[in-house]
């Protein structure tokens, strides 16, 4: 039997649904959806589906000769990881490192958590092996094999069968790991994952985590694969790996299984995009609980270091960013704000309109507005799973919300206005997340098309596209089951990689590494049954500058060509090249691929209708319209549908918004293009509209985050690029903080003082095309290495004063002073800590004042040591500010200056109110805190409950010290703001409003408000911590946080 006469099944087994595309003998495709878990009906959804589609009853043999191939993606591994339900695993690690994976990089995920948490480790037990190899392969301590045998035997007797082995420098110097694996094998361990095989790359923590994940997931995965194998006999069976390539079932490993399902979605999106003639696309896969975002511009984008469910994975994976927002995201009204998510109604109870008592969600907004019509939607809801969408339940939920809004604000909005408001907030959230991840990856999405798929994608695609400035939306055929389609269109692949860390000129080392990875990748693909002559080989090098951690992929070539390619990519991505730094080859990767699906996608639109099938009442912008409803399957290709309209298809609904037009192309792809703007004109009101308030909170934050994205991308120093020691912010015309994207709590709120210092010093001479820099701890700075660049924004060249300011603060590696790195332990005056400047004009008439900066940083007894690096980081800060300025300008263009100004005020009032609410629950307190450095911090908090304000009085604190533990006032402010932000316990916008209810009394000349020339470098790191401790340790429980 030839392939054309056989079946093929492409299956995506998700958490809730199993999607199946069947290729029938003859080549026709059909799509099917099954519940993944349905124990009353079947043991396995995939096997049941195939039998049902082919009409082969249970109890008869699976017709494996009739099936050419089964290609599957599965979330079995992902779910086991999320739910921590893998195989009990033993971790074997070098002596001294038993807690290394648990501690990781020791940072906390939530900056403002009073009780910071970390994900539970995957391993059940850990043993230290008595061995040590140095970084260059020197055997410091030979492996004590006898002791190890005893240790492993004991763990085996205790019942462990799965082991992960990760020794220091084992990725390169493998002998001890190999010996340990042999011992484990001799004892009888059945799953042995060894770090140099699982992920032969430098960095113990991610490699160790990956090895543990492999040992933890592989046994489970092989049981699942075994079940399928038993059920389908010797039918060729392939699984999708996280890297986007298929592998034969017997070679499917835990480490490669985490993104098995979503990777199929990217392949499906990429192939569909190519078919639609789109060069650059943003993949937008919106489901019930989350939305997956990806990019494609001719090549799959992969990452080597991702974190899934708190586990670091150092294996090549498709670059997918998951946003916690979907159709099931819960809508609520709290403290004057319209909030969407991050909590989700999940599969049970689901949205209110699912009829099982669920909360109001994004889906319910669409039901209430009529964008989803109950009678045109499958009846699969309710307690029995067979009733239509329950619009009455949704309406009731919205009435409750309206009651609550009325009680809190005094006005009762129309239910439709509430629903539309939540939708706008949800769309803005998603757009903000997509913008952020796109900039981080170096993409400007404006010239991309949005390729929408997944259950909820089509309902929001036009709105999200518009918020991103995108004019084209593509809804491909099979958009409801695109991941399954991707399984069918992917090729088989095998990847091998090897760490190098050698200079680009070391051709011998490179040659042998290339040979080694090529052989390994080819061998793996051959084992999958693909003959060597059919292999497509691609060798990619990860290259970086010496001393940097940011590597970039470059195809193998002559060393000159590779260096040129690296520099070109580096310049594209980061805006600079470093002519002084050596180029290093970090690692080498070989990918062997082949055996792809030969069938082109030959779907054709076959409909003939130009008339709507129904007309339905839908609410748009507060008015009711009659919207035409079409059925995609019967639509005539080429016919233009003008919004507002609804297009239904099996497994999805597409909303054509009122300024959009939809055309179904002959290749069955739905193209939506923007014909105008559907942005609503807003009225200026003295009282803020809570919906606009939330949207502006988001938009202002988005500006600050975009600035941060540009800065992290273009900065040169490790401090900014990798330690993320920077912050960006937006200010109003008076220098009040509007929005702040902090990475460092100590930068909180203090940048406003720096902006105000510039306004005070430069007053009316500030003109368009200027930028200033300041690092003076006595002018809003924190310590000298933190340099703030401030750019005034003039919307109109004739404006008498700046309309806004944007600023970015970065920690520079060195600004002079008595020790390299400008963090001297024994400085006694600020002069010994580096160069200090208060209002230095960095950009004059749009020209970077390079000579003047060099002169400034080279002056004095302790000049800066690496000025070219300062210059590079300053240029990156200017670039970040420019991005901020243009984003603020486009906000004004969209909403009008007056409205933007009024919401700059409203967001501050809202943050102020959030802090006042906390204060109302606090009690008075006081504390005296003695530091090792000799200083005493005395603090007393007096709460005025009626006025809902508090005075934080540091009177009695020691006078400035004769060491560097003095904290500039900005640091003291930041510590206080941090404590109150933690106390609010919710995600309030951080702006100048937060400080309004707080009065700080910090006597001039004390160690928390010192005068020059007091030294301050430890104030930023040590004393700031002591201030927070003193505030949290009040003798009376003034701060008892309420349960969340």
């Amino acid at each position, binding site marked *: 039997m030839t392939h054309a006469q056989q079946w093929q099944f492409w299956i995506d087994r998700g958490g809730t649904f199993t999607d199946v595309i069947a290729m029938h003998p003859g080549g026709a495709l059909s799509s099917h959806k099954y519940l993944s878990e349905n124990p009353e009906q079947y043991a396995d959804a995939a096997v049941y589906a195939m039998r049902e589609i082919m009409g082969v009853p249970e109890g008869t043999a699976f017709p494996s000769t009739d099936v050419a191939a089964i290609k599957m993606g599965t979330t079995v591994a992902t779910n086991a990881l999320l739910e921590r339900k893998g195989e009990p695993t033993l971790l074997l690690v070098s002596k001294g490192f038993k807690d290394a994976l648990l501690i990781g990089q020791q940072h906390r995920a939530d900056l403002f958590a009073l009780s910071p948490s970390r994900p539970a480790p995957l391993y059940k037990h850990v043993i230290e092996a008595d061995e040590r190899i140095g970084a260059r392969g020197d055997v410091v301590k030979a492996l004590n094999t006898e002791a190890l045998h005893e240790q492993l035997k004991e763990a085996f007797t205790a019942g462990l069968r799965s082991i992960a082995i990760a020794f220091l420098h084992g990725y390169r110097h493998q002998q001890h790991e190999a010996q340990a694996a042999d011992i484990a094998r001799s004892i009888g361990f059945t799953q042995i994952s060894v770090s140099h095989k699982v992920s032969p790359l*430098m960095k113990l923590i991610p490699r160790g985590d990956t090895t543990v994940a492999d040992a933890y997931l592989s046994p489970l995965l092989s049981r699942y694969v075994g079940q399928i194998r038993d059920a389908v006999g010797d039918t060729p069976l392939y699984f999708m790996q996280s890297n986007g390539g298929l592998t034969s079932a017997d070679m499917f490993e835990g480490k490669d299984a985490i993104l098995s399902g979503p990777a199929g979605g990217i392949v499906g999106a990429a192939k569909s995009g190519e078919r639609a003639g789109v060069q650059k696309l943003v993949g937008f896969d919106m489901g019930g609980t989350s939305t997956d975002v990806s990019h494609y511009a001719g090549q799959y984008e992969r990452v080597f270091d991702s974190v899934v469910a708190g586990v670091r994975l150092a294996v090549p994976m498709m670059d997918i960013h998951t946003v916690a927002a979907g159709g099931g995201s819960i809508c609520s009204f709290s403290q004057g704000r319209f909030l969407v998510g991050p909590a989700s109604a999940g599969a049970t109870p689901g949205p209110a309109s699912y009829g099982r008592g669920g909360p109001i969600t994004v889906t319910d907004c669409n039901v209430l507005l009529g964008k989803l019509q109950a009678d045109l939607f499958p009846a699969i809801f309710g307690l029995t799973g067979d009733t239509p969408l329950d619009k009455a339940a949704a309406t009731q939920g919205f009435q409750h919300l309206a009651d609550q809004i009325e009680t809190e604000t005094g006005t009762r909005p129309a239910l439709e206005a509430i629903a539309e408001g939540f939708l706008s907030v949800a769309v803005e959230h998603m757009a903000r997340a997509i913008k952020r991840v796109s900039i981080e990856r170096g993409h400007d999405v404006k010239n991309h098309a949005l390729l929408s798929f997944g259950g909820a994608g089509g309902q929001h695609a036009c709105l999200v596209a518009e918020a991103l400035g995108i004019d084209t939306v593509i809804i491909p055929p099979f958009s409801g089951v695109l991941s399954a389609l991707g399984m069918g269109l992917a090729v088989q692949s095998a990847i091998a990689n090897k760490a190098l860390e050698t200079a680009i000129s070391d051709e011998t080392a490179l040659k042998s590494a290339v040979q080694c990875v090529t052989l390994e990748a080819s061998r793996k693909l051959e084992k999958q049954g693909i003959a060597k002559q059919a292999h497509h080989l691609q060798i990619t090098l990860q290259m970086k500058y010496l001393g940097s951690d940011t590597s970039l992929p470059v195809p193998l070539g002559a060393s000159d060509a590779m260096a040129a390619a690296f520099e070109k990519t580096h310049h594209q991505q980061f805006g600079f090249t470093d002519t002084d730094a050596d180029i290093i080859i970090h690692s080498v990767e070989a990918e062997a691929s082949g055996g792809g699906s030969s069938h082109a996608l030959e779907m054709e639109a076959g409909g003939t209708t130009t008339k709507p099938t129904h007309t339905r009442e839908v609410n748009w912008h507060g008015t009711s319209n009659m919207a035409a409803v079409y059925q995609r399957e019967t639509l005539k290709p080429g016919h233009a549908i003008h919004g507002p309209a609804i297009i239904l298809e099996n497994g999805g609904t597409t909303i054509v918004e009122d300024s959009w037009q939809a055309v179904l192309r002959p290749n069955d792809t739905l193209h939506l293009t923007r014909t105008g703007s559907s942005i609503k004109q807003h009225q200026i009101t003295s009282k803020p509209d809570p919906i606009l308030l939330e949207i502006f909170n988001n938009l202002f934050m988005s500006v600050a985050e975009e600035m941060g994205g540009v800065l992290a991308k273009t900065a040169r120093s490790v401090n900014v690029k990798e330690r993320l020691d920077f912050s960006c912010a937006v200010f109003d015309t008076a220098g009040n903080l509007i929005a702040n994207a902090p990475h460092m709590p100590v930068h909180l709120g203090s940048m406003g003082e720096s902006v105000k210092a510039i306004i005070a010093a430069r007053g009316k001479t500030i003109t368009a095309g200027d930028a200033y820099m300041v690092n003076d701890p006595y002018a809003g700075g924190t310590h000298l290495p933190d340099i703030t660049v401030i750019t005034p924004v003039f919307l109109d060249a004739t404006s008498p004063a700046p309309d806004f300011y944007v600023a970015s603060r970065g920690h520079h590696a060195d600004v002079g002073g008595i020790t390299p790195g400008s963090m001297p332990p024994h400085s006694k005056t600020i002069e010994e800590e580096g160069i200090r400047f208060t209002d230095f004009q960095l950009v004059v008439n749009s020209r970077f004042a390079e000579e003047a900066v060099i002169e400034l940083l080279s002056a004095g007894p302790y000049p800066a040591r690496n000025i070219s690096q300062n210059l590079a980081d300053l240029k990156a800060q200017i670039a970040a500010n420019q991005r901020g300025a243009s984003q603020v300008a486009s906000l004004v263009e969209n909403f009008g200056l007056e409205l933007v100004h009024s919401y700059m005020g409203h967001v501050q009032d809202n943050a102020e109110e959030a802090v006042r609410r906390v204060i109302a629950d606090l009690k008075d307190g006081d504390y005296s805190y003695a530091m090792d450095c000799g200083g005493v911090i005395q603090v007393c908090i007096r709460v005025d409950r009626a006025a809902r304000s508090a005075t934080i009085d540091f009177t009695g604190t020691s006078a400035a010290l004769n060491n560097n533990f003095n904290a500039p006032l900005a640091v003291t402010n930041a510590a206080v703001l941090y404590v109150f932000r933690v106390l609010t316990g919710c995600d309030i916008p951080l702006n100048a409003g937060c400080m309004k209810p707080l009065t700080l009394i910090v006597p001039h000349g004390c160690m928390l408000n010192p005068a020059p020339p007091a030294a301050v470098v430890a104030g930023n790191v040590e004393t700031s911590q002591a201030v927070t401790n003193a505030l949290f340790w009040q003798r009376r429980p003034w701060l008892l946080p309420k349960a969340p």
Partner: protein
Amino acid sequence: MNNFTFGNDTYQYYQTIAGGTGAGPSFDGTDAIQSHMANSRLTDPEVLEWRYPVRLEEFSIRKNSGGTGRFTGGNGAVRSIRFLEEMEAAILSSHRSAGAPGLKGGHAGAAGSTCITRLDGKTDLLQAADQTTVFAGDIITIQTPGGGGYGENNSE
């Protein structure tokens, strides 16, 4: 915060080593994690040893260093670095003379310490803010402070 720097004319390195966080009215503290004003990340041990002439001998959770109470403070960390060349090393830290106090009857966490063990076996304790010259073979061990406990422990 345990700011630890070392270097010479060729190398300079700066790291912040976390302690344990304090317990609260409904939760234990967390072991060896950045708290409050600090949240910088730590270089991977293999990268550290590849770039600098040092060997990390131990990086672990400092057992029983969190203050006891109804809820226990988080444990600090133990970080032991052996130097393979002559360098200057410096520490800027707090809670060396007294540990982080407990709240509502909880006990204080253990104070931190910075100890140098010379190649000949002699040991010295460094001050909270201190500086020393290290030689090849010397080991500096930093024990970071534990978090304070919260509430009286009824079983005590």
